[in-house]
Protein backbone atom coordinates (compact mmCIF):
# COMPACT_ATOMS: atom_id res chain seq x y z
CA UNK A 1 0.00 0.00 0.00
CA UNK A 2 1.36 3.44 -0.90
CA UNK A 3 2.14 5.84 1.90
CA UNK A 4 1.77 8.93 -0.24
CA UNK A 5 -1.92 9.40 0.58
CA UNK A 6 -2.88 12.75 2.15
CA UNK A 7 -2.98 12.72 5.92
CA UNK A 8 -6.42 12.60 7.48
CA UNK A 9 -7.67 15.22 9.89
CA UNK A 10 -7.45 14.27 13.58
CA UNK A 11 -10.78 12.67 14.46
CA UNK A 12 -11.48 15.01 17.39
CA UNK A 13 -11.17 17.99 15.03
CA UNK A 14 -14.12 16.68 13.01
CA UNK A 15 -16.65 16.69 15.82
CA UNK A 16 -17.76 20.32 15.48
CA UNK A 17 -20.02 21.01 12.51
CA UNK A 18 -18.80 23.47 9.86
CA UNK A 19 -21.71 25.89 10.11
CA UNK A 20 -22.51 25.41 13.82
CA UNK A 21 -26.10 26.71 13.58
CA UNK A 22 -28.47 27.59 16.43
CA UNK A 23 -30.90 25.01 17.88
CA UNK A 24 -33.90 26.79 16.31
CA UNK A 25 -32.52 26.13 12.83
CA UNK A 26 -31.82 22.45 13.57
CA UNK A 27 -35.28 21.97 15.08
CA UNK A 28 -36.90 23.45 11.97
CA UNK A 29 -34.73 21.27 9.71
CA UNK A 30 -35.88 18.19 11.65
CA UNK A 31 -39.55 19.17 11.20
CA UNK A 32 -39.03 19.78 7.47
CA UNK A 33 -37.12 16.54 6.90
CA UNK A 34 -39.82 14.51 8.68
CA UNK A 35 -42.46 16.18 6.47
CA UNK A 36 -40.36 15.29 3.42
CA UNK A 37 -40.20 11.65 4.57
CA UNK A 38 -43.99 11.56 4.84
CA UNK A 39 -44.21 12.89 1.26
CA UNK A 40 -41.74 10.24 0.08
CA UNK A 41 -43.88 7.54 1.65
CA UNK A 42 -47.07 9.01 0.17
CA UNK A 43 -45.34 8.89 -3.23
CA UNK A 44 -44.66 5.18 -2.79
CA UNK A 45 -40.99 5.36 -1.75
CA UNK A 46 -39.65 3.38 1.16
CA UNK A 47 -37.11 5.66 2.83
CA UNK A 48 -36.41 3.18 5.64
CA UNK A 49 -36.97 3.43 9.35
CA UNK A 50 -33.80 5.46 9.94
CA UNK A 51 -32.97 8.23 7.47
CA UNK A 52 -29.29 8.05 6.56
CA UNK A 53 -29.69 11.23 4.52
CA UNK A 54 -30.50 13.47 7.48
CA UNK A 55 -28.89 16.91 7.18
CA UNK A 56 -29.84 18.13 10.70
CA UNK A 57 -27.29 15.53 11.87
CA UNK A 58 -24.40 17.34 10.21
CA UNK A 59 -21.94 14.44 10.38
CA UNK A 60 -24.20 12.51 8.01
CA UNK A 61 -23.80 15.00 5.13
CA UNK A 62 -20.82 13.27 3.50
CA UNK A 63 -21.41 9.83 4.98
CA UNK A 64 -24.75 8.73 3.56
CA UNK A 65 -24.96 6.79 0.30
CA UNK A 66 -26.78 8.72 -2.40
CA UNK A 67 -28.07 5.60 -4.13
CA UNK A 68 -30.74 3.37 -2.63
CA UNK A 69 -29.37 0.04 -1.39
CA UNK A 70 -29.83 -2.84 -3.87
CA UNK A 71 -32.60 -5.11 -2.68
CA UNK A 72 -31.11 -8.62 -2.67
CA UNK A 73 -31.99 -12.14 -1.65
CA UNK A 74 -29.79 -13.01 1.31
CA UNK A 75 -27.10 -15.60 0.68
CA UNK A 76 -26.37 -18.54 2.96
CA UNK A 77 -23.70 -16.83 5.09
CA UNK A 78 -26.01 -13.84 5.65
CA UNK A 79 -28.82 -16.10 6.86
CA UNK A 80 -26.56 -17.38 9.64
CA UNK A 81 -25.06 -15.48 12.51
CA UNK A 82 -21.81 -15.70 14.41
CA UNK A 83 -22.37 -17.98 17.42
CA UNK A 84 -21.87 -16.64 20.93
CA UNK A 85 -22.15 -18.24 24.35
CA UNK A 86 -20.86 -18.40 27.89
CA UNK A 87 -17.42 -18.97 26.45
CA UNK A 88 -17.52 -15.45 25.01
CA UNK A 89 -19.06 -13.46 27.87
CA UNK A 90 -18.71 -13.86 31.64
CA UNK A 91 -21.87 -13.33 33.71
CA UNK A 92 -20.24 -10.52 35.66
CA UNK A 93 -19.83 -8.43 32.49
CA UNK A 94 -23.53 -7.53 32.81
CA UNK A 95 -22.94 -5.49 35.95
CA UNK A 96 -21.37 -2.15 35.04
CA UNK A 97 -21.27 -1.11 38.71
CA UNK A 98 -18.82 -3.88 39.70
CA UNK A 99 -15.91 -3.14 37.40
CA UNK A 100 -13.84 -1.07 39.81
CA UNK A 101 -12.95 -1.02 43.49
CA UNK A 102 -15.72 1.40 44.50
CA UNK A 103 -19.33 2.15 43.61
CA UNK A 104 -19.92 4.52 40.69
CA UNK A 105 -21.68 7.84 41.28
CA UNK A 106 -25.26 8.16 40.09
CA UNK A 107 -28.67 6.56 40.07
CA UNK A 108 -28.27 2.77 40.11
CA UNK A 109 -30.64 1.10 37.67
CA UNK A 110 -31.33 -2.18 35.93
CA UNK A 111 -32.50 -2.74 32.37
CA UNK A 112 -34.40 -5.92 31.50
CA UNK A 113 -35.92 -6.91 28.21
CA UNK A 114 -36.33 -9.49 25.49
CA UNK A 115 -34.62 -9.91 22.14
CA UNK A 116 -37.26 -10.97 19.61
CA UNK A 117 -37.68 -11.58 15.90
CA UNK A 118 -40.46 -9.97 13.88
CA UNK A 119 -42.85 -12.78 14.89
CA UNK A 120 -42.18 -12.20 18.58
CA UNK A 121 -40.10 -15.35 18.96
CA UNK A 122 -37.26 -15.16 21.48
CA UNK A 123 -33.69 -15.04 20.17
CA UNK A 124 -31.53 -17.19 22.43
CA UNK A 125 -27.80 -17.23 23.04
CA UNK A 126 -27.10 -14.02 21.22
CA UNK A 127 -24.77 -11.21 22.11
CA UNK A 128 -25.83 -7.80 23.41
CA UNK A 129 -23.17 -5.17 24.05
CA UNK A 130 -23.93 -1.87 25.77
CA UNK A 131 -21.94 1.32 26.30
CA UNK A 132 -22.82 4.68 27.78
CA UNK A 133 -21.71 7.93 29.40
CA UNK A 134 -21.42 8.21 33.18
CA UNK A 135 -23.91 9.97 35.49
CA UNK A 136 -22.36 13.35 34.63
CA UNK A 137 -22.71 12.77 30.88
CA UNK A 138 -19.02 12.07 30.22
CA UNK A 139 -17.71 9.19 28.12
CA UNK A 140 -14.49 7.50 29.19
CA UNK A 141 -13.34 7.74 25.55
CA UNK A 142 -10.18 9.86 25.36
CA UNK A 143 -11.64 12.08 22.64
CA UNK A 144 -14.60 13.14 24.80
CA UNK A 145 -13.53 16.62 25.87
CA UNK A 146 -16.78 17.48 27.73
CA UNK A 147 -15.56 19.12 30.96
CA UNK A 148 -17.71 16.94 33.24
CA UNK A 149 -15.91 14.65 35.68
CA UNK A 150 -14.81 11.15 34.83
CA UNK A 151 -15.82 8.63 37.48
CA UNK A 152 -12.91 6.43 38.57
CA UNK A 153 -15.42 3.71 39.41
CA UNK A 154 -17.27 3.65 36.10
CA UNK A 155 -16.21 2.60 32.62
CA UNK A 156 -19.66 2.27 31.08
CA UNK A 157 -19.36 -0.85 28.91
CA UNK A 158 -21.01 -4.23 29.43
CA UNK A 159 -21.97 -7.45 27.63
CA UNK A 160 -24.51 -10.20 28.02
CA UNK A 161 -25.84 -13.30 26.28
CA UNK A 162 -29.62 -13.71 26.00
CA UNK A 163 -31.14 -16.64 27.91
CA UNK A 164 -33.52 -19.33 26.60
CA UNK A 165 -36.45 -16.91 26.78
CA UNK A 166 -34.47 -14.32 24.79
CA UNK A 167 -34.13 -12.18 27.91
CA UNK A 168 -31.25 -9.95 28.90
CA UNK A 169 -30.59 -8.06 32.10
CA UNK A 170 -27.92 -5.64 33.20
CA UNK A 171 -27.12 -3.32 36.07
CA UNK A 172 -25.66 0.14 35.59
CA UNK A 173 -26.12 3.77 36.58
CA UNK A 174 -28.36 6.16 34.66
CA UNK A 175 -26.28 8.10 32.10
CA UNK A 176 -26.49 11.90 32.05
CA UNK A 177 -27.37 14.07 29.04
CA UNK A 178 -24.30 14.81 26.99
CA UNK A 179 -23.29 18.00 25.12
CA UNK A 180 -21.92 17.77 21.57
CA UNK A 181 -20.98 20.09 18.72
CA UNK A 182 -23.53 19.43 16.02
CA UNK A 183 -24.93 22.90 16.66
CA UNK A 184 -24.93 25.61 19.34
CA UNK A 185 -26.18 24.27 22.69
CA UNK A 186 -26.64 20.74 21.35
CA UNK A 187 -27.36 18.13 24.04
CA UNK A 188 -28.00 14.46 23.52
CA UNK A 189 -30.88 13.00 25.54
CA UNK A 190 -29.58 10.42 28.03
CA UNK A 191 -29.11 7.14 26.19
CA UNK A 192 -27.44 3.74 26.25
CA UNK A 193 -25.90 2.32 23.05
CA UNK A 194 -26.98 -1.25 22.25
CA UNK A 195 -25.22 -3.57 19.81
CA UNK A 196 -27.25 -6.69 19.03
CA UNK A 197 -26.86 -9.88 17.00
CA UNK A 198 -29.86 -11.84 15.75
CA UNK A 199 -30.01 -15.34 14.29
CA UNK A 200 -29.00 -14.05 10.86
CA UNK A 201 -26.25 -11.56 9.95
CA UNK A 202 -29.03 -9.70 8.11
CA UNK A 203 -30.48 -8.87 11.53
CA UNK A 204 -27.40 -7.17 12.95
CA UNK A 205 -28.34 -3.89 14.60
CA UNK A 206 -26.78 -1.11 16.64
CA UNK A 207 -29.19 1.37 18.21
CA UNK A 208 -29.78 3.52 21.30
CA UNK A 209 -32.18 3.19 24.22
CA UNK A 210 -33.65 6.33 25.77
CA UNK A 211 -35.50 7.19 29.00
CA UNK A 212 -39.15 8.23 29.30
CA UNK A 213 -40.09 11.90 29.35
CA UNK A 214 -36.76 13.34 28.23
CA UNK A 215 -37.24 17.06 27.37
CA UNK A 216 -34.46 16.85 24.76
CA UNK A 217 -36.23 14.45 22.37
CA UNK A 218 -37.65 17.05 19.97
CA UNK A 219 -34.30 18.88 19.86
CA UNK A 220 -32.03 15.94 19.09
CA UNK A 221 -31.12 15.22 15.45
CA UNK A 222 -29.83 11.72 16.15
CA UNK A 223 -33.00 10.49 17.89
CA UNK A 224 -34.95 12.11 15.05
CA UNK A 225 -33.07 10.32 12.26
CA UNK A 226 -35.96 7.90 12.85
CA UNK A 227 -38.73 9.76 11.09
CA UNK A 228 -41.87 8.08 12.45
CA UNK A 229 -42.98 9.02 15.96
CA UNK A 230 -44.14 5.46 16.72
CA UNK A 231 -40.73 4.10 15.71
CA UNK A 232 -39.02 6.72 17.87
CA UNK A 233 -41.27 5.78 20.80
CA UNK A 234 -40.02 2.20 20.47
CA UNK A 235 -36.53 3.36 21.41
CA UNK A 236 -37.75 4.58 24.81
CA UNK A 237 -37.57 2.20 27.78
CA UNK A 238 -40.54 1.85 30.14
CA UNK A 239 -40.12 2.53 33.83
CA UNK A 240 -41.29 -0.65 35.60
CA UNK A 241 -41.82 -0.36 39.33
CA UNK A 242 -41.93 -4.15 39.66
CA UNK A 243 -38.31 -4.23 38.45
CA UNK A 244 -37.30 -1.57 40.94
CA UNK A 245 -35.48 -3.09 43.92
CA UNK A 246 -36.42 -1.46 47.25
CA UNK A 247 -33.70 0.84 48.53
CA UNK A 248 -31.34 -0.30 45.77
CA UNK A 249 -32.10 0.33 42.07
CA UNK A 250 -34.62 1.72 39.58
CA UNK A 251 -36.01 -0.73 37.03
CA UNK A 252 -36.50 -0.20 33.30
CA UNK A 253 -37.80 -2.56 30.63
CA UNK A 254 -36.95 -2.46 26.92
CA UNK A 255 -37.53 -5.07 24.23
CA UNK A 256 -35.55 -5.18 20.98
CA UNK A 257 -37.02 -6.59 17.75
CA UNK A 258 -34.68 -7.51 14.90
CA UNK A 259 -35.59 -7.24 11.23
CA UNK A 260 -34.64 -9.35 8.27
CA UNK A 261 -34.54 -13.02 7.37
CA UNK A 262 -32.52 -15.83 8.90
CA UNK A 263 -31.83 -19.43 7.93
CA UNK A 264 -35.03 -20.79 9.50
CA UNK A 265 -37.01 -19.03 6.76
CA UNK A 266 -35.46 -21.34 4.21
CA UNK A 267 -35.88 -24.64 6.00
CA UNK A 268 -38.62 -26.52 4.22
CA UNK A 269 -41.90 -26.66 6.12
CA UNK A 270 -43.38 -30.06 6.86
CA UNK A 271 -45.02 -31.42 3.74
CA UNK A 272 -43.28 -28.79 1.61
CA UNK A 273 -40.40 -30.83 0.22
Amino acid at each position, binding site marked *: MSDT*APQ*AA*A*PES*LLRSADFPPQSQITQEIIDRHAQAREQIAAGETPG*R*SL*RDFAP*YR*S*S*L*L*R*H*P*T*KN*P*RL*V*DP*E*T*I*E*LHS*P*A*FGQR*DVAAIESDLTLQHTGEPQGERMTVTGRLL*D*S*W*GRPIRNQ*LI*EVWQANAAGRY*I*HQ*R*DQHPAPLDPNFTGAG*RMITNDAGEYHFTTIKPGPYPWKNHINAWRPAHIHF*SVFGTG*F*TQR*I*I*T*QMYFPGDPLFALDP*IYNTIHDQ*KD*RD*RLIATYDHDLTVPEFSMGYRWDI*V*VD*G*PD*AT*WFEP*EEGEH
Partner: protein
Amino acid sequence: MTASAPASWGEPTHVPTGGQTVGPFFRFGVEYERMNEVAFPHSPGAIVLTGTVYDGEGAPIPDAIIEIFGADTDGSVPDARGSLRRDGFTFTGFGRTMTEDDGRYHFWTRNPGPTPGPDGRPRAPFIAAVVFARGLPDKLHTRIYLPEDDELRASDPFLQGLTDAERASVTAERTADGYLRHDIHLQGERETAFIAFR
Protein backbone atom coordinates in the same frame (compact mmCIF):
# COMPACT_ATOMS: atom_id res chain seq x y z
CA MET B 1 -39.65 -8.74 2.78
CA THR B 2 -42.10 -11.30 4.14
CA ALA B 3 -42.22 -12.83 0.67
CA SER B 4 -39.46 -15.26 1.66
CA ALA B 5 -41.03 -16.32 4.96
CA PRO B 6 -43.09 -19.53 5.03
CA ALA B 7 -46.75 -18.75 4.46
CA SER B 8 -47.74 -20.58 7.65
CA TRP B 9 -45.94 -17.97 9.73
CA GLY B 10 -48.41 -15.28 8.68
CA GLU B 11 -47.61 -11.59 8.78
CA PRO B 12 -44.94 -10.30 11.18
CA THR B 13 -46.45 -9.33 14.52
CA HIS B 14 -43.64 -7.17 15.88
CA VAL B 15 -42.27 -3.95 14.43
CA PRO B 16 -38.46 -3.98 14.22
CA THR B 17 -36.44 -1.60 16.36
CA GLY B 18 -34.87 1.20 14.32
CA GLY B 19 -31.10 1.55 14.06
CA GLN B 20 -29.14 4.51 15.41
CA THR B 21 -25.61 5.76 14.87
CA VAL B 22 -22.74 4.38 16.93
CA GLY B 23 -21.69 7.98 17.63
CA PRO B 24 -18.05 8.99 18.04
CA PHE B 25 -17.27 7.25 21.34
CA PHE B 26 -17.77 3.56 20.70
CA ARG B 27 -14.26 2.16 21.02
CA PHE B 28 -14.42 1.37 24.73
CA GLY B 29 -17.80 -0.28 24.23
CA VAL B 30 -17.12 -2.63 21.33
CA GLU B 31 -13.37 -3.27 21.35
CA TYR B 32 -12.01 -6.60 22.47
CA GLU B 33 -8.73 -8.49 22.20
CA ARG B 34 -7.79 -9.89 18.77
CA MET B 35 -11.17 -8.84 17.41
CA ASN B 36 -9.82 -8.52 13.86
CA GLU B 37 -8.04 -11.90 13.94
CA VAL B 38 -10.69 -14.06 12.31
CA ALA B 39 -7.80 -16.32 11.36
CA PHE B 40 -4.66 -16.51 13.48
CA PRO B 41 -2.09 -14.21 11.79
CA HIS B 42 0.33 -16.02 9.47
CA SER B 43 -1.32 -19.40 10.08
CA PRO B 44 -1.68 -21.54 6.95
CA GLY B 45 -4.27 -19.98 4.65
CA ALA B 46 -4.50 -16.75 6.64
CA ILE B 47 -4.65 -13.57 4.55
CA VAL B 48 -4.94 -9.86 5.30
CA LEU B 49 -8.05 -8.03 4.18
CA THR B 50 -7.32 -4.32 4.28
CA GLY B 51 -8.56 -1.06 2.85
CA THR B 52 -9.70 2.47 3.60
CA VAL B 53 -13.16 3.84 4.31
CA TYR B 54 -13.90 7.16 2.56
CA ASP B 55 -16.57 9.85 2.75
CA GLY B 56 -18.24 11.71 -0.14
CA GLU B 57 -15.31 14.09 -0.58
CA GLY B 58 -12.76 11.29 -0.61
CA ALA B 59 -11.59 12.01 2.94
CA PRO B 60 -10.76 8.94 5.04
CA ILE B 61 -13.24 8.14 7.81
CA PRO B 62 -11.37 7.62 11.09
CA ASP B 63 -14.36 6.55 13.20
CA ALA B 64 -16.05 3.63 11.46
CA ILE B 65 -16.59 0.05 12.62
CA ILE B 66 -16.33 -2.75 10.05
CA GLU B 67 -17.59 -6.23 10.80
CA ILE B 68 -17.15 -9.25 8.58
CA PHE B 69 -18.66 -12.72 8.57
CA GLY B 70 -17.41 -15.23 6.03
CA ALA B 71 -17.35 -18.89 5.14
CA ASP B 72 -14.24 -20.99 5.65
CA THR B 73 -11.97 -21.87 2.72
CA ASP B 74 -14.05 -24.99 1.97
CA GLY B 75 -17.23 -22.89 1.75
CA SER B 76 -18.65 -24.14 5.05
CA VAL B 77 -20.51 -21.67 7.24
CA PRO B 78 -18.80 -21.39 10.64
CA ASP B 79 -20.94 -22.20 13.66
CA ALA B 80 -18.29 -22.24 16.39
CA ARG B 81 -18.53 -19.91 19.37
CA GLY B 82 -15.56 -17.93 20.56
CA SER B 83 -15.43 -14.79 18.37
CA LEU B 84 -15.06 -12.67 21.53
CA ARG B 85 -12.55 -14.91 23.26
CA ARG B 86 -10.24 -16.08 20.52
CA ASP B 87 -8.43 -19.33 21.16
CA GLY B 88 -6.15 -18.81 18.18
CA PHE B 89 -7.20 -21.88 16.22
CA THR B 90 -11.02 -21.97 15.92
CA PHE B 91 -12.36 -20.28 12.79
CA THR B 92 -15.59 -18.51 13.81
CA GLY B 93 -15.85 -16.48 10.60
CA PHE B 94 -16.65 -13.26 12.47
CA GLY B 95 -14.41 -10.29 13.03
CA ARG B 96 -14.68 -6.65 13.93
CA THR B 97 -12.35 -3.73 13.59
CA MET B 98 -12.34 0.05 13.68
CA THR B 99 -10.74 2.34 11.19
CA GLU B 100 -7.52 4.00 12.33
CA ASP B 101 -6.95 7.75 12.22
CA ASP B 102 -6.09 7.48 8.51
CA GLY B 103 -9.29 5.59 7.71
CA ARG B 104 -7.61 2.23 7.24
CA TYR B 105 -8.87 -1.09 8.54
CA HIS B 106 -7.48 -4.58 8.42
CA PHE B 107 -8.44 -8.14 9.28
CA TRP B 108 -6.63 -11.43 9.31
CA THR B 109 -9.02 -13.95 7.81
CA ARG B 110 -9.22 -16.71 5.17
CA ASN B 111 -10.35 -16.71 1.57
CA PRO B 112 -13.95 -17.89 1.66
CA GLY B 113 -14.77 -20.85 -0.53
CA PRO B 114 -17.93 -20.90 -2.61
CA THR B 115 -21.02 -21.60 -0.50
CA PRO B 116 -24.15 -22.80 -2.28
CA GLY B 117 -27.06 -20.34 -2.09
CA PRO B 118 -30.24 -21.12 -0.14
CA ASP B 119 -31.55 -22.66 -3.38
CA GLY B 120 -28.57 -25.02 -3.49
CA ARG B 121 -27.07 -23.44 -6.60
CA PRO B 122 -23.46 -22.21 -6.70
CA ARG B 123 -22.55 -18.64 -5.84
CA ALA B 124 -19.42 -16.53 -6.17
CA PRO B 125 -17.48 -16.48 -2.88
CA PHE B 126 -17.70 -13.32 -0.79
CA ILE B 127 -17.30 -12.04 2.74
CA ALA B 128 -20.40 -10.39 4.23
CA ALA B 129 -19.65 -6.97 5.71
CA VAL B 130 -21.46 -4.38 7.81
CA VAL B 131 -20.34 -0.77 8.28
CA PHE B 132 -21.19 1.50 11.20
CA ALA B 133 -19.82 5.00 11.71
CA ARG B 134 -20.24 8.33 13.39
CA GLY B 135 -22.50 10.26 11.02
CA LEU B 136 -24.12 7.09 9.72
CA PRO B 137 -27.62 6.87 11.25
CA ASP B 138 -28.01 3.15 10.52
CA LYS B 139 -25.83 0.17 9.54
CA LEU B 140 -24.88 -0.49 5.93
CA HIS B 141 -24.61 -4.04 4.59
CA THR B 142 -22.34 -4.84 1.68
CA ARG B 143 -20.33 -7.77 0.31
CA ILE B 144 -16.64 -8.19 -0.44
CA TYR B 145 -16.28 -10.60 -3.38
CA LEU B 146 -13.06 -12.34 -4.31
CA PRO B 147 -11.64 -11.24 -7.68
CA GLU B 148 -11.15 -14.84 -8.88
CA ASP B 149 -13.71 -17.50 -9.80
CA ASP B 150 -14.68 -15.87 -13.12
CA GLU B 151 -17.21 -18.54 -13.93
CA LEU B 152 -19.07 -18.28 -10.63
CA ARG B 153 -18.92 -14.48 -10.80
CA ALA B 154 -20.42 -14.48 -14.28
CA SER B 155 -23.39 -16.56 -13.14
CA ASP B 156 -23.89 -14.98 -9.71
CA PRO B 157 -27.40 -13.51 -9.45
CA PHE B 158 -26.30 -10.42 -7.50
CA LEU B 159 -23.13 -9.62 -9.48
CA GLN B 160 -24.93 -10.12 -12.79
CA GLY B 161 -27.38 -7.34 -11.96
CA LEU B 162 -24.71 -4.71 -11.31
CA THR B 163 -22.95 -2.28 -13.64
CA ASP B 164 -19.19 -2.73 -14.12
CA ALA B 165 -18.49 0.12 -11.69
CA GLU B 166 -20.85 -1.29 -9.08
CA ARG B 167 -19.35 -4.75 -9.47
CA ALA B 168 -15.87 -3.28 -8.99
CA SER B 169 -17.11 -1.53 -5.83
CA VAL B 170 -17.92 -4.90 -4.22
CA THR B 171 -14.87 -6.80 -5.48
CA ALA B 172 -11.56 -6.86 -3.63
CA GLU B 173 -8.19 -6.59 -5.39
CA ARG B 174 -5.67 -9.38 -4.93
CA THR B 175 -2.28 -8.00 -3.90
CA ALA B 176 1.11 -9.47 -4.81
CA ASP B 177 1.24 -11.00 -1.31
CA GLY B 178 -2.00 -12.88 -1.97
CA TYR B 179 -3.83 -10.55 0.38
CA LEU B 180 -7.07 -8.67 -0.33
CA ARG B 181 -7.37 -4.93 -0.63
CA HIS B 182 -10.82 -3.37 -0.57
CA ASP B 183 -11.83 0.27 -0.08
CA ILE B 184 -15.31 1.29 0.98
CA HIS B 185 -16.81 4.59 -0.19
CA LEU B 186 -19.89 5.66 1.77
CA GLN B 187 -20.69 8.33 -0.82
CA GLY B 188 -19.45 9.88 -4.05
CA GLU B 189 -18.49 8.84 -7.55
CA ARG B 190 -17.00 5.57 -6.34
CA GLU B 191 -19.83 4.86 -3.91
CA THR B 192 -19.87 1.24 -2.77
CA ALA B 193 -22.91 -0.82 -3.75
CA PHE B 194 -24.71 -1.35 -0.44
CA ILE B 195 -27.48 -3.89 -0.05
CA ALA B 196 -30.78 -4.40 1.77
CA PHE B 197 -32.42 -7.78 2.19
CA ARG B 198 -35.71 -8.98 0.80
